[in-house]
């Protein structure tokens, strides 16, 4: 699916998908349009998490902190500075990217689980500051009723804005993955020792991946401000980070679009299960367990495997 983005057949599918997504607000009621916006921005969030995780092999375990900081950055610029919200939409992700750089420099010396743990500890530090700084960030209440420009303040406007920004972000992420830089990054994931032997600066490439991931997580956070007009400290709590990692796993972290699918599944399951029962986390937990047991490459990874396997079977029969 990911490889087909630029060939003719793939392009047709993409155009069809885009047209359908553009027509959605004319067909579906408000709630579903809102839900779709949330799916898109969570998908972007999970895909930006998957950039260092699935393609860089870095244990990015506290990605939510960049998402939250991007959202808070945007919200604070809008509410405190009086600058145009459009500037805020750029400043938020840049702050997140800068945090990605700072945390990356501190964490990058460590590998695997230690990296993830130091990141969680730094992220908890950020969370604690935001949680307690009542005069600036609103503390545990967060900030509500953030005003966005009129053109994107309606639910349809917010949806189209989310769709456009997510689309551009995905395209940029895809190009990055297919660029020489992306190939080097995946090379580092598969064999860091060999990569450094042939003269690749491993740490520098990984650091860049963290900054890129931070930036796009910040973009997702900004989109949340546009769609929901609110920010709260739970946006950067570690449970959300693990949920993002699970989105990547559920969809398939070796595929480009997998995390988007995972995000869609989780948002849909949560929304519809919670209308039937209070105990949606129980259902979600059981689904995760089953996926980890039976689909270690995720849903999309499993589909890709199945599609690839079919021609081979046909050949074998001949």
């Amino acid at each position, binding site marked *: 699916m990911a490889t087909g983005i630029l060939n003719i057949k793939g392009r047709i599918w993409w155009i069809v998908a885009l047209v359908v997504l553009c027509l959605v607000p004319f067909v579906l009621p408000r709630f579903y349009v809102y839900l779709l916006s949330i799916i898109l921005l969570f998908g972007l969030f999970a895909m930006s998490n998957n950039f260092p995780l699935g393609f860089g092999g870095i*244990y990015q*375990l506290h990605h939510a902190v960049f998402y939250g900081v991007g959202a808070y950055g945007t919200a604070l610029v809008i509410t405190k500075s009086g600058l145009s919200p459009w500037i805020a939409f750029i400043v938020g992700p840049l702050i997140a990217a800068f945090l990605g750089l700072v945390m990356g420099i*501190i964490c990058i*010396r*460590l590998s*695997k*689980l*230690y990296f993830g*743990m*130091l990141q*969680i*500890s*730094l992220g*908890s*530090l950020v969370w*604690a*500051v935001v*949680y*307690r*700084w*009542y005069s600036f960030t609103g503390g545990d209440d967060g900030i509500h009723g953030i005003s966005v420009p009129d053109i994107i303040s309606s639910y349809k406007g917010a949806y189209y804005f989310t769709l456009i920004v997510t689309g551009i972000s995905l395209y940029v992420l895809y190009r990055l993955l297919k660029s020489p830089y992306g190939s080097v990054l995946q090379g580092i994931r598969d064999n860091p020792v060999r990569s450094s032997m042939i003269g690749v600066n491993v740490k520098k490439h990984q650091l860049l991946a963290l900054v890129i991931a931070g930036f796009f997580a910040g973009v997702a956070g900004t989109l949340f401000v546009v769609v929901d007009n609110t920010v709260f400290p739970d946006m950067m*709590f*570690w*449970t959300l980070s*693990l949920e993002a*990692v*699970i989105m990547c*796993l559920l969809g398939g972290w070796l595929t480009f679009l997998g995390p988007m699918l995972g995000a869609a599944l989780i948002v849909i399951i949560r929304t519809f299960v919670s209308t039937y029962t*209070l*105990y949606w*986390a*129980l259902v*979600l*937990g*059981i689904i*995760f*367990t089953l996926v*980890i047991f039976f689909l*270690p490459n995720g849903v999309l990874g499993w589909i890709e495997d199945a599609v690839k396997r079919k021609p081979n079977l046909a050949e074998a029969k001949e």
Partner: protein
Amino acid sequence: MDVTGVLNQVFVGLSRTVILFIVSSGLSLILGVLRIPNVAHGSLYMIGAFMAFTLSKLFGGGDMGFWMALIGAPLAVALISLVAERGIFQYLYEREHLMLILLTFAFSLVFGDLVKIVWGGEYKSVPVPYMFQGFIPLIGGLPFPLYNLFLLVCGPIIAILLWLLVNKTKIGKIARAAAVDMEMVGAVGINVSWVFASVFVIGCLLAGLGGVLVAPTVSVTLGMDHTLIIEAFLIVIMGGLGNIWGALLGALIFGLSQSLGILIWPQFGIIFPYLAVVIVLIFRPTGLLKATW
């Protein structure tokens, strides 16, 4: 800032340290021997606390109830963990850490909702047993709760028992050997699977014990697992993975920086322990004491 105030905070911090040490030593044991980063450890701590509420109520809420809870709740938690280990975890030891983190996180979601189903969403409070009610005067005349003194006695006892278990008993020696080379231990004819199961159960029992001991001092509520598990993980990483004394050292740093941080800067007291972890990990990336892996 007067001396008695500081001293009081030191003792408050030390009582917190005891709880943190008990829970994180269990986590460290599991991480060191089984290499499972068990995110559900915090849920077992929460279950221990809720179990303490039920048992202490069942036995009349007095001293008897407390002692029964102290014995019964950790055992109940151990039973739950035994079922989880034999049923699911034992098939996953070979998986990579990321998968195990996610799997145990999924478990913590399930456990969280099960607690909600069994005990409901309201706050629960466990009474301090009669014999530990009241205060004793500290140096400088500040009253110090008797129950916290009991906690301060519990901490060293459990540390010594754990040390004896790991270093002086047969199962401890096998477990340490298995942590270094699991295949070799299996090759000399030891049933590694059951050694792992017992280490897992002992680790989880400690989580339950921590939950029972903390129950009279806090309001028992859903979500108490989320803050604790992160603290426990950071303590274990800070002290050195799998090292019991490292867990003690980490818990001391965490507990004291928290209680003294509140004194220095009340509003941002909670950031000090995280700051301490960051500083430790910048200078000693693999923890203060020797890690087992």
